[in-house]
């Protein structure tokens, strides 16, 4: 296939961008959840 490398790059870009973004969101959700837990505990302790 002619120009296959362009097609392949474009193909990878589409899903890599979505995947990386989704990963970063998942990571941030976990972090925020942990922090909320910590803050809640702090509120109960005092």
């Amino acid at each position, binding site marked *: *296939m*002619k*120009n*296959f490398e*362009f*097609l392949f*790059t*474009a*193909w990878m*870009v*589409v*899903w890599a*961008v*979505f995947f990386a*973004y*989704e990963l970063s*969101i*998942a990571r*941030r*959700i976990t*972090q*925020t*959840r*942990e*922090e*909320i837990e*910590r*803050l*809640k505990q*702090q*509120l109960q302790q*005092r």
Partner: protein
Amino acid sequence: MKARFTITALVALLILCAGYAALFIAPDEATMHAIQRIFYFHVASWNAMFCAFFVAFYASVAYLVTGKRKWDALGVSGVEVGVLCCTIGLITGPLWARPVWGIWWTWDAKLTSTFILWLLFIAYLLLRGLVEDPEKKASLSAVFAIFASLDIPLVYLANRLWRTQHPQPVIAGGQGSGLDPTMSKVLLLCLLAVFCVMILVLIDRYRLELLRHDCAELKFEIESRGLDASEGAATPALQKGGQ
């Protein structure tokens, strides 16, 4: 949780089907051959972008009318995901243009308009990062999102009147337009796949924004009781609320 897993699995399957169809089932284009297959995802990403920006516009209006925080969260999610789809379109476009036109970029109407759109919504995200007060942040960024959305048709119209080199819309683009039936079926599948992925990502981003809001409220409560909110934080990076 189980329902979510099922939906994600279904969307993953949809992506695989769409990818297979775009690469192997769709007929070869007469003049551009293999590289034309970028089209299926290029067009799909624009479609998803417009849907995301429309969500952002709707949510911004709804926030100003109702004043509910959830609309603000949806607004910022829509813009961020829209910018993401726009970035994908801006990368795949030149990758197609290089072998076909022989250049990466040209100052054509559609390209220029989209680039401006991208800059406008990046400015929205910047604005959110630079305003401290949460109430102000929400209302001012909603005002800006509405102004930016009103600008989109004007940008397209101005550029359209000005110059264009981009291929005309193949569907309903006037005489001689129209897709091979197999091609349009594959395109529809790809539109659906990218759209579903966009919606999934948008929902997750929305959940994150709501969680951040809860977190900020907790922090505020702790501070109002005269405690140190950063006490016991695992790493300093966690203290930053982000945008």
